């Protein structure tokens, strides 16, 4: 057992902290969130040149071959700065799905381009019929000779507007909620019949509703085995949960530490707020919630890293705990900042909204508590 970071991991953490302190203050982040693109392509290329985009990609495909712990450190560190660049949809979800289910030629053509920052992707797996169930798939894919034809509507596809490729789940057999019969397809963004309705999300990011109207793609664009996409989706979602949990841990760290700083400075009744015992105890509870979430995040990440049988259970417990702790830390950060906590001028509000969306992603605390208890 060894819980220490390697020298490389320490360097990664330091280089992200350095990037955030020089490039990513609140005003810069707000400007990016309000820009047409919603993030900075220049930053994306910086990420590529610093090797962050190559981190989770295998060495055989131009990557660095990092493990899930490396991705955890990446996401936790970026979470401290509320980074808006599409690491999660493009690198973790899209890249993860290609790595897990892509054919040799698909990997050869896409993974090096993901690693060097020349393409991006996203994954369209959700539908309006059931906001938490990846197995609820009404979108249909029918084979027509050497093509598949896809028709349907996918919801809340993160950063779809900046993706060069989408992975879309569609039903090739079975009923709407069956695990069996879901297949994954790789679809170029410019495919005929694919249209998007783009919108901002409350946390300053971007998403789209994606409509597929008889989109024709070659059979070779089937990702993995026909009818067997659910397993890949589950694995990709697990990686997504680990990534956003790490991001939430980073965000919670900023929230509880900056709330400590604020309550030390803000004076009422002739005393700093931090002098009041009720405030001290609340801050202590925030510190504890943060630490428990961080502990379980580390453990679940390491368990999935070594493909332990215990990993799935821990991932459910983790997503539940992240939802519970981030709500506690977020709400109390706003509360202890008083009226200022309600304003968009302070970073607090933006972390609060990001944590709110993280709980909603990939099934919220209720869904995962239910899955955890069985």
């Amino acid at each position, binding site marked *: 057992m060894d*819980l220490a970071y390697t020298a490389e991991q320490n360097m990664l953490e330091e280089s992200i902290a350095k990037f955030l302190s020089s490039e990513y203050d609140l005003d810069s982040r707000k400007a990016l969130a309000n820009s047409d693109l919603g993030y900075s392509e220049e930053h994306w290329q910086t990420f590529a040149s610093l090797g962050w985009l190559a981190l989770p990609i295998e060495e055989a495909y131009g990557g660095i071959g990092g493990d899930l712990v490396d991705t955890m450190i990446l996401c936790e560190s970026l979470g401290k700065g509320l980074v808006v660049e599409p690491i999660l949809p493009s690198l973790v979800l899209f890249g993860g799905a290609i790595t897990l289910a892509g054919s040799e030629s698909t990997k050869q053509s896409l993974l090096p381009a993901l690693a060097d920052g020349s393409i991006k992707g996203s994954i369209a797996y959700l539908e309006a019929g059931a906001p938490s169930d990846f197995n609820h798939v009404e979108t249909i894919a029918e084979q027509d000779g050497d093509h598949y034809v896809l028709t349907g509507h996918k919801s809340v596809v993160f950063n779809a507007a900046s993706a060069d490729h989408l992975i879309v789940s569609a039903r090739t057999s079975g009923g709407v909620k069956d695990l069996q019969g879901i297949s994954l397809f790789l679809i170029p963004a410019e495919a005929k019949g694919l249209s998007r309705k783009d919108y901002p999300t409350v946390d300053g990011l971007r998403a789209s509703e994606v409509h597929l109207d008889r989109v024709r793609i070659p059979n070779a664009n089937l990702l993995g085995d026909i009818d067997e996409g659910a397993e890949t989706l589950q694995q990709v979602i697990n990686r997504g949960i680990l990534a956003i949990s790490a991001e939430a841990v980073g965000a919670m760290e900023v929230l509880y530490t900056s709330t400590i700083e604020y309550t030390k400075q803000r004076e009422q009744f002739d005393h700093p707020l931090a002098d009041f015992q009720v405030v001290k105890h609340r801050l202590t509870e925030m510190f*504890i919630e943060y*630490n428990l979430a961080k*502990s379980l995040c580390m453990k679940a990440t390491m368990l999935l890293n070594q493909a332990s049988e215990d990993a799935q259970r821990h991932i459910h417990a983790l997503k539940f705990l992240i939802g519970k702790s981030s709500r506690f830390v977020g709400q109390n950060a706003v509360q202890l900042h008083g009226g200022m906590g309600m304003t968009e001028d302070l970073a607090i509000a933006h972390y609060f909204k990001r944590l709110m969306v993280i709980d909603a992603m990939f099934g919220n605390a209720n869904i995962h*508590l239910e899955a*955890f*208890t069985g």
Partner: protein
Amino acid sequence: MDISFSEEDLAFQRRVRTFIDNNLPTGMALWTKRSEWFKALADEGGWDVPKWPKAFGGPDFTPTQRYIFDLEMGKQSTPPQLPFGVGMLAPILMNYGSEEQQERFLPGIRDGSVNWCQGYSEPGAGSDLANLKTRAELSDDGTYYLVNGQKIWTTLAHIAHWMFCLTRTSSAGAKQEGITFLLIPMDDPGVEVRPIITLGGSHSVNEVYLTDVKVPVENRVGEEGKGWTYAKGLLAHERSGLAGIQNSVMGLEKAKSNARKVAVGEASLMDLSSFKHKVGVLEAELMALEFTEMRTLARVAAGGDPGPESSILKLKGTEIQQRINELNLEAAGIFAAPWGPEAFGPDFAHGATQSYLGGRATTIYGGASEVQKDVIAKNVLGLS
């Protein structure tokens, strides 16, 4: 970062399991053969005192070995040692006691032949321990202290041979100053023990009255007036031991199996969503707390301090113990009510009530939870 155990650690785990299989008395023998169990542990190379340093006969476990050792012992519910001598006084004697005191007291602590109790709390000094008033006055010839005062909540004072005691030798300066650490024999005619019966109907704590007790200066540990410093280090020790995380891991499994045996309609209590979710929330937090302890151990293994996370263990660990007690109480249903030596209803019901009642003490002793939060706020978060 890697969560798996090394080959050496796995071999150690097998060794601990084999040892338990071969030596742990079962059933009623658990009580009658206690001393043989501790003898076997000692013969294994200091396993009876797993936290003692090598110089004093401890096994010199690595932190991972310590974790494995606690885990395996916890799983099999091996009999615990009374904590006062081995866990609490011994480290103080090792750090601050004279060589004579170490030679005189450590062997009896280790083999269990001498029972100790802790004379800290007083009627006016609970969470505010430094407020203690028990007076120790040095005799004119400088050979003994004359001790007068009252201690309270003294666990197992009624079976103790000795008490380690905080006394006031000076009222000058801050109240943390002027406190002196004395070792007092309980058979002194000036020592009177009166029982206190607590919520669970059991007798484990006492009042101890000290009237003109003459304590030879050889029984003073360290310097006069430095007792608070010594005790403070010990309190941290005591607190980390009170989290009982491995016991809670086992306790929660037992609580779940108890609930599965309780019929509710056509199903069991475990199928009731309100109960099941309470179990799930608790289990997720316990998993996180268990790994928080690992993080603490890993820091120590890397040569560092236990780190800020360690302060969470007592606070959260005792809260979790109480919530497990509550699950059992709820599972017992109306069979929580029958009181007395005879058991009725499900086999766990009888003990569930006592554990629930007695367990309310866990967030009070060793520094109440509210005090723990003050300590974390001050020492970890830097809030004055």
